[in-house]
């Protein structure tokens, strides 16, 4: 399961000072009040240096968003691939996503709600595609279901959508995300349509898997 490659992604988005500066300024002032001069200044660059890399704020936002999607999904996919079997792989991926958001709260808010204020419809579509990708990790459970055809087609989107909505609201309100605490309830909703109530209940009390090494970029 892979998300299609977006334009402009970089191997390590946290190494790009303009992306980091952009996210910091948006976190402090909001999207509308963020201007190119402030971003360049925060990154320790001149306006000309900014202009040499991006046509304007929107392009910088779009490329930063793509870069962070790539980084986020690389961590999630690595966790998913590293654990054989479903729902174990899904559980590992869910904790990897939660950890990434805990480690990079500003970046998570940028990707979760900051970009919603952008004028680009493409950003919204790409944001949806990230959740759609997560839904495909959930829907891998269809192969494990006793009767795959009996699982509603909407089940994976409903499960990921519930998390997406709750996270979006917490981000907009500036509340703590508490992503790790959300994982068992998300796993219950994700597993239930495929494996039934008993298997889903076990998710509510299951200890989290050991956490691998921290993701890249420190705490932003």
């Amino acid at each position, binding site marked *: 399961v892979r998300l299609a490659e977006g334009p402009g992604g970089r191997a390590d988005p946290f190494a790009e000072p303009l992306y980091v500066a952009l996210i910091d300024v948006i976190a402090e002032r909001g999207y509308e009040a963020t201007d190119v001069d402030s971003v360049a200044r925060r990154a320790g660059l001149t306006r000309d240096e900014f202009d040499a890399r991006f046509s304007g704020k929107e392009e910088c936002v779009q490329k930063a968003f793509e870069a962070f999607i790539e980084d986020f999904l690389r961590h999630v996919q690595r966790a998913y691939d590293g654990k054989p079997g479903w729902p174990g792989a899904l559980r590992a991926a869910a904790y990897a996503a939660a950890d990434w958001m805990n480690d990079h709260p500003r970046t998570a808010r940028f990707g979760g709600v900051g970009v919603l204020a952008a004028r680009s419809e493409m950003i919204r579509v790409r944001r949806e595609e990230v959740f759609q990708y997560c839904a495909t990790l959930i829907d891998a459970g269809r192969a494990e279901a006793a009767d795959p055809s009996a699982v509603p087609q909407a089940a994976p989107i409903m499960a990921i*959508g519930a998390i*997406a909505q709750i996270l979006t609201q917490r981000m907009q309100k500036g509340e703590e995300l508490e992503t790790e605490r959300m994982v068992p309830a998300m796993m219950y*909703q994700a597993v239930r349509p495929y494996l039934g109530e008993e298997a889903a209940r076990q998710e509510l009390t299951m200890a989290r898997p050991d956490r691998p090494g921290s993701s890249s970029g420190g705490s932003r």
Partner: protein
Amino acid sequence: MARLPQHLAKAPVGRERLSREELDRHQRRRIIEAATGVFAKRGYPPSTVDNIADAAKIAVGSFYVHFANKEDCLLAAYDLVVGEARERVAAATAAQSGWPRQALAALHELLVLIAAEPLQARLALVEIQTGGPVALARYGETLDLVIGSLAGGREVTDLDPPPPETQEAATANGLAWLLAQRILRGEAKDVSELFGQMAEVVLEPYLGGARARREIAAFEKDLVSA
């Protein structure tokens, strides 16, 4: 020239005298309807008061007679759309008895409304979430109403144990997400096709799969015969 008595004089067509209050109310409504279209088509963030004034065919100054700013207008539009939707859903559920039938009627009416009014649906499910903290709180209040209605399923469930306490929030948020996604893709007119799947997701946690499917089949049969 002889003049007709006052009571026989022909009133100018469409020029009945409206009170200042009625004119204001009419203009406010016209602005809200225009703004709904602007927000839904352009997206809320890039929309401007100028765009709304153009669409409503009013001067920008007239906009500010009714609204403090763009956000104020968004909230008014949201309240209008949600208020009308709630009335329609309440009317649809009033004719049903028992939580499962009421939940199905509410869901069905909601999907019919979304298909019939895609711009209003986009405003209420997508654009409102980009309108800032106050707009989001308003949206959260609507979701809380849905969560409260879903909790009625706990009174009819005979499943042991009952669903976890996060069930209603998960269902309400999941439904909202799924609908928003379809609307964003420009598929609002086709959401009625989702009824069967969504109905099962709503009922199944409380009734179990077999009973949920029986309820849905009976409801759909009644719809056809109605």
